[in-house]
């Protein structure tokens, strides 16, 4: 392995970490503002113009808050659990291409940390491993709400995982590769070649599974306030809680990137819009969709989630795979 590759990879990794962590923080501000406008409020207004510095105020608050470990908690696990969330969320991004290739001073840059040939499998696997964070946090907290939250984490994982995997199988059968760059290149021929037209069912199923994976509103049962206070995060405060938060928003960005890459043509240029702008637009739209759905829709019970995933979505995904297989043959 030559030194240039190592340096390049380190720079890319640091860039992804810094930019995505910053974006995750900024997304909290955007979420508050959009939710506020949708609910006919103003949102944060007082810190900076239109509350734009609320982000800094929140950061100061989170960093300076007392770090509490409850008396009966299993301290080592309680302390490690919040780290798992952002670590898994950022690790998942290692196999995700962000932009098309470009050249800087004659040096060809591929904006992906590692183009492994099982990219999408890696992303899904690591993102699911991120579910250990709420699970361990809830079980080590010695708090009944946290414990229920942890139990619901397992329920959510058991439900959405089968759907997201089976939903992605059909497009992968068509493409014949698990690398996200290959998936992107498959849809190079403009809007007509986007996989959403040939795999609409898989798109909807994967979107639903993505909402469940990121614990966003229709499926936010693991930290639903009205039922279990804050779920697994009930006992957390300060930056440990903030780590969960960064992990959640980084996961949202990952899922948005995955959907854009697999179903909506990824970073292929469209007409006069360059590919880099296209993927930014798509990811922004999906982030907006996450917030939009949160403002509009009620959430469902754990048993409804299991019912939905196992009795409705999984058979649909299997039928989708079957039909795709018949058409391909």
């Amino acid at each position: 392995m030559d030194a240039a590759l190592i340096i390049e990879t380190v720079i890319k990794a640091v860039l992804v970490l810094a930019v995505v962590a910053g974006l995750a923080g900024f997304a909290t501000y955007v979420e508050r503002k959009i939710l506020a406008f949708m609910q006919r409020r103003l949102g944060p207004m007082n810190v900076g113009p239109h509350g734009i510095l609320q982000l800094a105020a929140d950061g100061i608050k989170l960093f300076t808050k007392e770090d509490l470990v409850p008396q009966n908690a299993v301290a080592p696990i309680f302390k490690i659990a919040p780290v798992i969330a952002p670590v898994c969320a950022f690790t998942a991004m290692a196999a995700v291409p962000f932009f098309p290739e470009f050249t800087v001073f004659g040096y060809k840059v591929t904006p992906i940390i590692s183009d492994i040939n099982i990219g999408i499998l890696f992303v899904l696997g690591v993102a699911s491993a991120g579910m250990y964070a709420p699970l361990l946090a809830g079980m080590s907290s010695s708090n009944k709400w946290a414990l229920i939250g942890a139990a619901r984490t397992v329920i959510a994982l058991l439900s959405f995982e089968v759907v997201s995997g089976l939903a992605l199988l059909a497009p992968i059968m068509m493409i014949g590769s698990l690398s996200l760059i290959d998936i992107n290149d498959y849809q190079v021929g403009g809007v007509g070649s986007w996989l959403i037209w040939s795999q609409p069912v898989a798109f909807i199923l994967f979107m639903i599974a993505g909402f469940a994976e990121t614990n966003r509103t229709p499926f936010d049962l693991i930290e639903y306030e009205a039922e279990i206070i804050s779920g697994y995060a009930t006992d957390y405060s300060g930056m440990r809680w903030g780590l969960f938060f960064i992990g959640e928003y980084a996961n949202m960005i990952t899922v948005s990137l995955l959907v854009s890459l697999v179903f909506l043509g990824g970073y292929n240029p469209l007409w006069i819009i360059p590919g880099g702008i296209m993927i930014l637009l798509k990811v922004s739209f999906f982030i907006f969709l996450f917030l939009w759905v949160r403002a509009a829709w009620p959430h469902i019970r754990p048993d409804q989630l299991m019912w939905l995933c196992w009795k409705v979505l999984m058979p649909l995904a299997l039928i989708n795979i079957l039909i795709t297989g018949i058409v391909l043959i």
Partner: protein
Amino acid sequence: MSLEQFKRRDALPGYIFYEAEKKPQNGWESFKRVLKRTFKGELFVGLWIVFREMIKRGNSHTLSYPQEKLAIGPRYRAIHKLLRLLESGNERCIGCGLCEKICIAKCIRMDTRIDENSRKEVSQYTINFGRCIFCGFCAEVCPELAIVHSGEYENASEQRAHYALKEDMLTPLDEFKANKQKEFKGFGALSDNADSFVKKTPLAY
């Protein structure tokens, strides 16, 4: 209305009954319900409604409170004020003690004395705002419209006694001279020609 009618608690004509969705009786019906709910698109109606509210301009109901304040109605019952007579600037309160008598929270206390002109004067007047329930009886019973409720509702203070003494509630003389004493505008307020009725009570008959 007769007593019998009055006691009827069942739904009277005029109620609109809402036909709830029928529960599915068998598997086929519940399957049909799932299909109907899936493709009806009600969720997208919800999405459209919140989006419509978001893109409307000036749609916010939030009042940015310290900068903007709600207009208080003239009959709003907040912290009390003691008013002065319109021209002379003397206190309106004649020390009759009716407010102290009627106060159901027993929070008003007043002391009176005979002053140098051998007229009755209110020397002490306090309201314990920790006990006051802002019922408005004192303002209603006052024959001289001397004690009224003001719109001063921002009564956060370091001390319980703030606002409660006579000098806090009485319109300051300089403010009065600058014509800043606001007259009470609602039912029972002074008429426009109230000044012409003012005269000193004769001391001897």
